[in-house]
């Protein structure tokens, strides 16, 4: 009896040393409802600020278009809300550089670059940039207005963010280089808020470089059940054993959504779907003639596991880089459905091309570099695992039996 008690005490002691040797855990809930409320208010304020800046910039652009026509060729740069005699040498240089990289611009396309005053939006300290995107008037497919905010410095010079101006220029640069897109392309771009057409890397980045800045090929989104698990789930013992983290580390990369996973596993029909049905990150209050904007954080949604996530914003840029400008121009202007025009222009299926692109992008992503999760659909127990488990079990049994046999005492 004493021996059993000693053994039990030993086991409990070992468990105690293992589980409680680290610093004591943080309190179950350290933040009050005010902080949740502040976070919620901040999120809504950001949304309101971006929509306000987008609509105000749109009003300015449409008013400007109403009184003066935009000439074809290199774009005009206009500043609004700053007073007179202001310039932005930085914006001028960037626009000039981009248009030089385009080469001979399409004569049917007219571009206006509108720099609007971001000072008032800045006063709200929302910690996100005001709207940067393009206005593509529905009644005039040849006009493109790139709109981004700037701040006046030293009384005369407008300070802009180059990355934001690039974002605004992206749709206009595509039109300048390849003309007005065919109807299927136009509809797809509008439906997806131009989510796949936000990179200008096709202008100057060599084909050999893997683009995407290490991001996953489909936008990662958290399923809301996971955040619930983190926020409220589990006892301190479960947290100590890092169960949730272990599950997240071992699970396939669900963050990209089920259709993307099936695409990576070789299902080309799903690959096409991830491009054609790419969900748009735009908000419902944004008019259809404005392109979408970049979201500032990973999003959570209740159906993140099963939904189609937006394809990477450098997708179209990569098609141009891989397939060349001439063939892309045919694809861009085609009046056939998107899949058929892709096949005709590039001699490959859209799904097949997207699968290869997705695999390449994923292999080059930070996620893959640091977690190396394999994409296995269905049962993911490798055949070697049960064999290994059975082998070790047999070895343990044999060892125990051999030990017991040695200790047998015959009468």
């Amino acid at each position: 009896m004493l021996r059993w008690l000693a053994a039990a005490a030993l086991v409990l002691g070992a468990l105690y040393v293992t589980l409680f040797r680290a610093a004591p855990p943080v309190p179950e809930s350290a933040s009050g409802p005010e902080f949740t409320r502040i976070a919620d208010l901040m999120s809504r304020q950001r949304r309101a600020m971006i929509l306000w800046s987008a609509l105000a910039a749109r009003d300015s652009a449409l008013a400007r278009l109403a009184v003066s026509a935009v000439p074809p060729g290199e774009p005009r740069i206009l500043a609004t809300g700053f007073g007179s005699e202001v310039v932005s040498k930085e914006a001028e240089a960037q626009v000039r550089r981009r248009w030089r990289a385009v080469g001979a611009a399409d004569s049917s396309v007219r571009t206006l670059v509108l720099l609007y005053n971001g000072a008032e939006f800045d006063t709200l300290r929302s910690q996100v940039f005001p709207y940067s995107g393009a206005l593509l008037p529905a009644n005039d497919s040849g006009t493109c207005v790139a709109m981004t905010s700037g701040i006046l410095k030293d009384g005369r010079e407008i300070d802009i963010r180059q990355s934001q101006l690039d974002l605004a220029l992206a749709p206009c640069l595509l039109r300048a280089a390849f003309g007005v897109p065919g109807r299927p392309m136009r509809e797809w771009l509008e439906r997806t808020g131009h989510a796949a057409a936000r990179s200008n890397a096709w202008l100057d980045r060599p084909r050999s470089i893997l683009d995407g800045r290490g991001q996953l090929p489909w936008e990662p989104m958290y399923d809301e059940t996971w955040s619930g698990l983190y926020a409220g789930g589990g006892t301190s013992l479960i947290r100590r054993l890092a169960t949730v983290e272990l599950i997240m580390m071992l699970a396939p990369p669900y963050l990209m959504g089920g259709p993307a996973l099936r695409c990576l596993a070789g299902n080309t029909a799903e690959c096409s779907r991830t491009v054609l049905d790419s969900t748009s990150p735009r908000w419902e209050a944004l008019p259809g003639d404005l392109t979408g904007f970049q979201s500032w954080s990973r999003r959570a949604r209740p159906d993140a596991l099963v939904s189609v996530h937006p394809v990477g914003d450098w997708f179209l840029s990569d098609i141009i880089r891989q397939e060349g400008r001439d063939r892309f121009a045919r694809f861009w202007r085609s009046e056939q459905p998107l899949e058929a025009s892709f096949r005709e222009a590039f001699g490959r299926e859209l799904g097949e091309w997207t699968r290869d692109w997705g695999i390449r992008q994923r292999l080059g992503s930070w996620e893959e570099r640091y977690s190396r999760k394999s994409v296995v659909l269905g049962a993911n127990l490798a055949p070697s695992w049960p064999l290994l488990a059975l082998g070790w079990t047999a070895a343990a049994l044999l060892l125990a039996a051999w030990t017991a046999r040695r200790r047998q005492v015959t009468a």
Partner: protein
Amino acid sequence: MSRLGVGVLFLALAGPLAAQDAAAWRDSAYRLSAERQRVWDSLKQDDAEIEEIARRSGLVVSASSEYRAFAEEVLDRFDAARRRWFGAALPGPAGFRITLRQGESWSFGRQTSRPQSLSIAGVPDTGDVRLAPFVPDANLGSPEKAAQRFLGEYGTLMMSSAPAAIRRWLRAGLLLDMGEDSRRERAMYSLVTGVGKAQRACVQGDATGCAHALGIRRSGDPDAGGEYYPLVRADMLLAALEQGGQGAWTRLMAAGGAVEEGLAAAAGTPADSMLVRWRDGLLALQPDRGPLSLSAAGLILGWSALILAAGLAIARWV
């Protein structure tokens, strides 16, 4: 279509509905901002019981009951640490105030314990909102941790007045809340494991390689390779400030212009000497023993012995 026709169409699109929408979202943004500020202010008002504990060379520390015992020690630690890098410089003529707050807890919508606050202000403390970050839920478990957190916030305030070129170069701020040992260890690890040509040259003692890998000066060699992480830049800047002594921060602020000139002015030495000294300091931190601690090894052996003993004790020993 005539120009007049196009104009009418555009005006129709820019009509009252769109304008009204922009105004509505503007009002909404301001209303939400005011509401957020109101909730924020109500949080601060909970700190009525906070009282002044000590003053030291232009700094005042105040605390609520739980932190009064170690408030003075926090102030001493904070003051010593900030002088090491910034001398007596302040973030601005209006002074500053940093408030850390911790300890409130809620259960089923009720507050079960009151928040506790610890605050350090630099006189004149005008209460300028821009200079008074309020840090919720800070971990104030010890004077060291509290001083560390104050230092992190103070570094952010100081950097906001630094030359734009230095801020752009630094990318991720000074990272003073990270803890010096942790920061230096990571910087050392980045230094010795960098694989780029310039990074390897830096480890070998080549100042030009270090300058390239830190993004201070381009080497001109197309094969020079990449740069270190932003953390390494923060470590470089702090090393330059430390090398330069009391007036280092003031010289950095006065230098303006290029990053290299600013850092050299702060360190008070030519840029190459500064880089070599920084590199020597990091290399001296290389570990001289393995990562397995005695307690971890003991735990592993203990578990192994326990499992072995349990396995061998299955059969009765007669």
